[in-house]
């Protein structure tokens, strides 16, 4: 019977470095799992051969062993964890110190270190957990695959958690920092800092954005700080524009601080009229698109899209009599129809967007309101695959009638009968 295990408990070893310890623990867990699996297989074979419950004692033995091993591993993991924690603490201390000295580079570095330490810690914890779980499971089923999967899952989850925690912490620290000065700009800067710590890439982007946001007033602080503030501002504004802001609060504040767009009164007017006629929550969002010549942009909900369009066309103070452009985009998470209007009566522009469920891409047609929407909607149907309800003649326009698929979808695969 393959009962002999060559693995000795890690406690009995001479002191090793954390990494080695970890490696070893992992290797052991693997070996053990393999062993168990082998054992299990053999047992099964025996069972089938003897057709009797003679494998019971062996099973119990294996269970016992696995448990012992798991215990040992947990101890080792705990040790590693403690070490990691110590390191993280040191890093945190370093970070605080850096904050005191006001050296941003050092701060960022320290933060990165802290994040790394936290990650290591989490990994160690996850491993311990996985080992524990794995051992239990292996003892029960002896299935190697399940063990590996459980381990991986636990590790990934722990990692993600730790990363989030580290990020939040960094942000919190930054926030505290900023709170001291009582400056909202600094808050944004702190946010940017946290992001920079999380991703080295973000720093370069922020810098580039800072260069773009030339109009932002330089504060009396150090050069670097001003840069960071500008970067944060630009970033927040960009986030607001892209509507990818994780937190609306942070995104909006810097936007307000910026010089209000000359078209802001127009947006306010549109919003007021729409909300008055269709209720407060008729619009999903509205903003000035700073990248697109400050065009006031309204985002409708799918069920209010047609009503808003109707209002835009017929309301006395809006009168958007000209549909300049209509097209759709596949954003992978959703589809989007973008329309650009112009009012020749009031000489003002507006953009209207609507997000559509990708699985069930149906939206009201604007062709009954503007005849000019006819062909563009056919094009959007043809190339993106959006069905426009109420369209007079919704057929393919660019591709042949028997074409399969919608080519401008991001996941489009050309269909070829010969393949």
């Amino acid at each position, binding site marked *: 019977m393959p009962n002999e295990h060559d693995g000795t408990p890690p406690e009995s070893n001479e002191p090793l470095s954390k990494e080695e310890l970890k490696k070893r623990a992992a290797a052991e867990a693997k070996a053990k799992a393999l062993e168990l699996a082998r054992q299990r297989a053999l047992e099964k074979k025996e069972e089938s051969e003897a057709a009797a419950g003679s494998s019971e004692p062996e099973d119990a033995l294996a269970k016992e062993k696995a448990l012992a091993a798991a215990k040992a591993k947990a101890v080792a993991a705990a040790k590693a964890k403690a070490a990691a924690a110590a390191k993280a603490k040191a890093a945190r201390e370093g970070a605080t110190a850096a904050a005191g000295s006001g050296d941003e580079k050092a701060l960022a570095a320290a933060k990165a270190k802290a994040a790394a330490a936290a990650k290591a810690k989490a990994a160690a914890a996850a491993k311990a957990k996985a080992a524990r779980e794995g051992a239990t499971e292996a003892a029960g089923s002896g299935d190697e695959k399940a063990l590996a999967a459980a381990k991986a899952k636990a590790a990934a989850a722990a990692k993600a958690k730790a990363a989030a925690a580290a990020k939040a912490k960094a942000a919190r620290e930054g926030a505290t920092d900023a709170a001291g000065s009582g400056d909202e700009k600094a808050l944004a800067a702190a946010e940017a800092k946290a992001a920079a710590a999380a991703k080295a890439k973000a720093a370069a982007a922020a810098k580039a954005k800072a260069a773009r946001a030339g109009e932002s007033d330089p504060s009396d602080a150090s050069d670097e700080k001003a840069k960071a503030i500008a970067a944060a501002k630009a970033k927040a504004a960009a986030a607001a524009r892209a509507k990818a802001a994780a937190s609306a609060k942070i995104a909006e504040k810097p936007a307000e601080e910026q010089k209000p767009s000359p078209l802001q009164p127009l947006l306010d007017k549109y919003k007021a009229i729409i909300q008055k006629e269709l209720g407060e929550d008729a619009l999903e969002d509205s903003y000035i698109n700073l990248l697109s010549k400050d065009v006031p942009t309204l985002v409708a909900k799918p069920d209010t899209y047609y009503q808003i369009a109707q209002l835009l066309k017929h309301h006395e103070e809006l009168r958007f009599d000209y549909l300049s452009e209509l097209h759709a985009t596949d954003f992978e998470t959703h589809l989007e129809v973008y329309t650009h209007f112009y009012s020749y009566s009031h000489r003002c522009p507006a953009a209207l967007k609507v997000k559509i469920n990708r699985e069930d891409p149906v939206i009201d047609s604007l062709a009954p309101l503007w*005849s000019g929407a006819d*062909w563009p909607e056919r094009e959007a149907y043809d190339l993106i695959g959006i069905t426009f309800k109420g369209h007079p003649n919704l057929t393919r326009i660019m*591709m042949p009638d028997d074409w399969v698929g919608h080519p401008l979808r991001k996941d489009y695969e050309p269909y070829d009968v010969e393949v």
Partner: protein
Amino acid sequence: MIRTEEMLLNVGPQHPSTHGVFRIVLKIDGETIIEANPVIGYLHRGTEKLAENLQYTQIIPYTDRMDYLAAMTNNYVICHAVETMMNIEIPERADYLRVLVMELGRVASHLVWFGTYLLDIGAMSPFLYAFREREAIIGFLNEISGARLTFNYMRIGGVKWDAPEGWIEKVRDFVPYMREQLAGYHDLVTGNEIFLNRVKGVGYYSKEEALDYSLSGANLRCTGIAWDLRKDEPYSLYDRFTFNVPAFDSGDAWARYQCRMAEIEESLKIIEQAVEQFPESGEVLAKVPKIIKPPKGEAFVRIESPRGEIGCYIASEGKKEPYRLKFRRPSFYNLQILPKLLVGENISNLITILGGIDIVLGEVDG
């Protein structure tokens, strides 16, 4: 009582009057059109799909192939969209060169329209004159860009080449010559009784219909709406020049003809002023990053092409390729009104109406 019968008549996709591949299925009763169904897409090359895998500078040559009669404005619209997103300042000299080539392109485009339109409705000789002058313009554009039609001249942040020695002077001398020729065209065609009978009152639509159908360019201005993006939403340097926006309000093919002929004159005015103001020296390309990466977000810009409002929409993920690129192609929008205009018309007016819209099929089909 005469017994009549409806029949289907297929025109195109290869038909000389469409100047491309455009098909229209007519339901006729005798010589009267009852119903018209345009079929397009024969020239669809998937520019927008291709662009999703191309860097911004690499997309510029593709735009040459959309409206191949006025490729400079197409070049400009994509550069303008990216520059708007990235907030790039264009060197003055480059901007003047851009205006010059765009306006020369506009004149050339209108000359092609003038020549072929009259050819389509039965006048042979104007075509020869118009192409003679257009050839001179194409010569200028060839000299500056290295190509006769597919220029690929503009770059994000400026233009590829500076004007060669003596080019500005040649363009300056061309303006009075062109004015003289233009007067000749008017003598030859504008007052011609046969021509007037062919175009007056044909293909009429009202101001409201023009707006409803998203028409732009001369197709809109022929109804009396003096709307020109060069004037009303100035881009590039157009706010530095004095010029008029010709508008005629009869809404028929005749008004569209007058509009385009007057626009040639206005373009010549702009060229004249641009040559006068042309800076002695300077850069022709702004300092731009080697790899163009507009910030994350989206932008839609529109400018005035010879055929109307050409627009460019870019959705960027901050990468070197656009996430989505879309052109608002004026010919595509302008052509939508055709079935409506044809109902009840005589077949012989089909070409007058279609030609009056001034489409380029490369642009219709994208």
